[in-house]
């Protein structure tokens, strides 16, 4: 069940350009956290920042009650977060949103397609899939060489193809370009990244079963304010923070 927790920073490191990894410790069990979910982080104290920032959970260490997040400093909140110190407390709502529904799926191989800061949630997903004996292939896209992270970590779990916009590392082009070249075999795909990427991924893989994870500016983060909706193909809408961020690829209409 969703809760407010004060997490303490155990580790904070820069893992790529403007990209930070933070390991957070909880005082209680985090066994209920599943891949694809996010934590909703309060920045600062008092009224400095009224809106929390959603950041995906990149990894979970159940035994030690640790959560890993990976994020890019793009604005005030993430920059402030990147300047915290080990030992500082982070006020977070968790676990938020839906997870990749791996329990109910029968498959042998999975394709993970991540772009930029959409890569982190796929890591914990990959670990869980591999733990279930599912073969994992990852195609990860980044702006350029300086922004690449977690290549080795994914390699430890399966095949990894890296794409950079400018070709400064790995394949040149978009993740969908790499897909066309590599043509990996898979039963189900999981994708997270910028909306433009997701649109091209879902249309490229139109006849495949897949799940995508969406981003949107959020108010409450818990389903109460309707800030974060996306139209659904049934003529209605879905709240990304509560009914997402993970959706079956065919459920929602990307614009």
């Amino acid at each position, binding site marked *: 069940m969703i809760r407010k927790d004060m997490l303490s920073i155990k580790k904070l490191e820069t893992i790529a350009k403007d990209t930070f990894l933070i390991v957070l410790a909880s005082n209680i069990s985090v066994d209920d956290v599943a891949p694809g979910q996010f934590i909703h982080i309060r920045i600062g104290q008092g009224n400095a920042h009224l809106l929390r920032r959603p950041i995906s959970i990149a990894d979970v260490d159940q035994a030690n009650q640790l959560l890993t997040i990976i994020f890019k400093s793009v604005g005030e909140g993430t920059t402030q977060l990147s300047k915290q110190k080990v030992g500082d407390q982070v006020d977070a709502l968790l676990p938020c949103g839906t997870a990749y529904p791996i329990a109910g799926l029968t498959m042998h191989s999975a394709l993970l397609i991540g772009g930029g800061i959409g890569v982190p949630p796929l890591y914990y997903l990959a670990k869980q899939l591999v733990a279930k004996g599912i073969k994992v292939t990852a195609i990860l896209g980044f702006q350029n060489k300086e922004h690449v992270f977690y290549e080795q970590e994914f390699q430890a779990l399966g095949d990894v193809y890296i794409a950079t916009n400018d070709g400064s590392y790995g394949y040149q082009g978009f993740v969908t370009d790499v897909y066309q070249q590599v043509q990996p075999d898979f039963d189900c795909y999981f994708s997270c990244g910028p909306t433009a990427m997701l649109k091209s991924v879902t249309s490229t893989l139109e006849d495949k079963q897949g799940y995508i994870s969406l981003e949107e500016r959020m*108010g409450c983060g818990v389903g109460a304010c309707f800030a974060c909706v996306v139209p659904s193909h049934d003529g209605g809408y879905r709240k990304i923070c509560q009914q997402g961020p993970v959706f079956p690829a065919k459920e929602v209409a990307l614009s």
Partner: protein
Amino acid sequence: MNLSVSLPGLSLKNPVMPASGCFGFGMEYSKFYDLEQLGAIIIKAATEEMRYGNATPRVAETTVGMLNAIGLQNPGVLNIIEKEVPPLAAYNTPIIANVAGSTIEEYELVAEKLGNTEQIAALELNISCPNVKEGGVQFGTDPDLAYEVTKRVKAQSSVPVYVKLSPNVTDIVTIAKAVAAAGADGLSMINTLTGMQINLQSRRPILANQVGGLSGPTIKPIAIRMIYQVREALDIPIIGMGGITCAEDVLEFLLAGANAVAVGTANFTNPFICPEIITALPDTLAKYGFNSLQDAIGKGHAHETTNLSRA
């Protein structure tokens, strides 16, 4: 300390309720705490049909405030009555339903449905939503239209009607007088101020709707001023809101003339804010020399001693 307060149709154990649109239909926050702690709950605006609302992005953060342009997204009044109200009604906390529309007829229909739903204790008539192209705010900025829609909505049911005023007006007192004359049982103020934020990178307004409603601590001085002015001019119960984040803020609203308060944006920052404020209220009231909640209402007005509750 006695925190109870009586308003027309509402007997509240304490004066703190979540504001409309900031608490959905309540159940999300039931995961954080027992909703029976709340004085009341004002649910998200209802319209006749399901509405999708505006394109996203719909929210932006400003300096100690936020902008929103949800655009009255909601599942439609019948869905609300059927699916959203029943779970909430299980709590022993009065539900106030927020009524919206594009035309007077839509307001009437929504009010008729909600006002005749047993679990709804009162209506909040939203004539102040700045985020929809049609209806909404024009009813809240023109005294004649405000009068008309209030009167027509009042006629739909016997539950009390609190009219939610827009701060985007030259003269708040005139509007307040118009809706009071039309039979409003109380006022709810203030809704958001219309604002905009431009993204320097994209060179476009951040909100897809361009403009949005400004809420949070940034609007508190304006809310306090408007409530104070209306309280000087009229003897009508007021649910005050706009930037409340702590018990001291609640007291400031009470002194200005509010009889109860609603908390909006602060729920996003801290989902426990309402019960935390309720817990802090007795000490805060005592610290400033009050023996009860009722005791503080309107006390910011010189020589003011009226008990403004009408119940």
